[in-house]
């Protein structure tokens, strides 16, 4: 069943991005819990977890780029352009008439150009970050409200509220 659902799931790029974020968030949350101790504030544990995890944004982009490369439509287009190119080569070899060989040339050009464009598309960086500003991962920088949470100046939430007034 997963054989059919997997590729279908990948058709929706937003769903793919959501799943990447959910997966990375799951890992970061467990890492944070692992580093959380009664004497260690939550944001410090979170910072340690992030340091151990690596560059979240870069990893998320890389995963999105790989997912996009293996998108079912992209795979189908790769096969299609490959088929067009091979057909062009065969027409070019076995075609005897001048016009037929010209069609072969044209097919080869279309196939090669299509594959090149798909290759270049796969190389370009993922741009979904701009569209998903509401992502859960971006909220990681906002420490959860807790009495044990200190900010960079060592103030408790109550002290922060008092000083802001």
């Amino acid at each position: 069943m997963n054989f059919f659902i997997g590729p279908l799931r990948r058709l929706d790029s937003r769903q793919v991005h959501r799943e990447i974020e959910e997966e990375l968030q799951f890992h970061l949350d467990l890492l944070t819990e692992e580093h959380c101790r009664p004497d260690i504030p939550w944001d410090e544990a979170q910072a340690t977890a992030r340091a151990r995890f690596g560059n979240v944004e870069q990893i998320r982009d890389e995963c999105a780029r790989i997912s996009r490369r293996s998108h079912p439509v992209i795979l189908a287009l790769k096969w299609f352009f490959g088929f067009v190119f091979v057909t062009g080569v065969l027409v070019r070899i076995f075609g005897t008439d001048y016009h037929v060989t010209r069609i072969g040339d044209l097919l080869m050009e279309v196939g090669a150009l299509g594959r090149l464009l798909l290759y270049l598309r796969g190389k370009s960086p993922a741009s979904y970050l701009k569209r998903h500003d509401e992502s859960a991962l971006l909220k990681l920088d906002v420490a959860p409200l807790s009495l044990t949470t200190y900010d960079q100046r060592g103030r408790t939430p109550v002290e922060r509220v008092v000083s802001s007034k």
Partner: protein
Amino acid sequence: MQGTLELLILKTLSRDPMHGYGIAQRIHAAVDDLLKVEDGSLYPALYRMEERGWIASEWGVSDNNRRAKFYRLTKAGRKRLEGERANWERVSQAIGRILETA
């Protein structure tokens, strides 16, 4: 070294399906600070391996009742693991011989 992380992941998944965090934990426990593996670097490797058909993924529920993506080894992955393992042994043997003689 190139392919090392893939080999570690393949070996880890050869026992049972696991989520990314579980794989990282298992690797950290096995290498015991002898090898520095950044947790995040696992994910691009996992996605690449899934793209190549060595592993497959499925969403499930983790021990802490949260939705998690579980990875399992495919038949192609098992074959790859055998190949990578043989290759690794060959390379380490060769390097070992050079170190002994040089």
